[in-house]
């Protein structure tokens, strides 16, 4: 992977949907490999990784039976791409570099292990004038196994 400015490498787009069926069918027909559904208890959302040989990876995010953060988003904006995820070997250095470049960065959720990425830590930031970004640590955390795309 080639890293560019801010030490960030593109990882995936986060797509919020009400239900996964239509989205997974659409992506499958586009040639995506559809991963298993993973319940992220921490975020109270269901997640599905979708990978393609040439198209950007997509993380489908849809609500559980109880209201969570994505429910609010869906109510306001409907199905939509709502975050961009980048991989970095040093989250703090990347955030510092973005701020040094003059962008306003607000921490939305501090780093927590993500079951979808084998325990690697993810954190969320809002970049003024850009939107929500997810930063995925390159380092593997104490959890193991992960859930890769089938």
């Amino acid at each position, binding site marked *: 992977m080639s890293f560019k400015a801010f030490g960030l490498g593109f990882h995936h787009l986060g797509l919020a949907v009400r239900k996964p069926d239509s989205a997974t069918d659409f992506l499958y027909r586009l040639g995506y490999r559809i991963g298993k559904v993973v319940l992220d208890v921490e975020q109270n959302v269901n997640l599905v990784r979708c990978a393609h040989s040439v198209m950007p990876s997509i993380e489908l995010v849809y609500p559980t039976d109880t209201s969570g*953060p994505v429910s*609010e*988003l869906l109510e*306001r904006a409907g199905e939509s791409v709502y975050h961009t995820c980048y991989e970095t070997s040093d989250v703090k250095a990347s955030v510092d570099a973005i701020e040094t470049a003059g962008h306003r960065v*607000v*921490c*939305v959720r501090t780093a927590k292990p993500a079951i979808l990425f084998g325990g690697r830590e993810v954190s969320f930031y809002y970049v*003024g004038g850009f939107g929500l970004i997810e930063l995925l640590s390159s380092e593997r955390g104490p959890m193991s196994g992960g859930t890769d795309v089938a």
Partner: protein
Amino acid sequence: MEERLKRAIAAVLGLEEREVTNDAGPGNIKNWDSLKQMQIMLALEDEFDVRFSDDEIHQLTSYRSILLALKGRVEG
């Protein structure tokens, strides 16, 4: 200050200025959600040339609390 504040909040939320009442907040303005909250606070940083902490950005979730914080900075 109150007028500028209401104008700035209204602009982010796509409302008329008069719709931002003294009691305004996520509880009575439907599209004042967590994303709009951040957009409001960053817009206010530009408008009033102030800087809020991350905690303030997440916690100042009403017109009144924002006004109080702004007064402490701009007039303090």
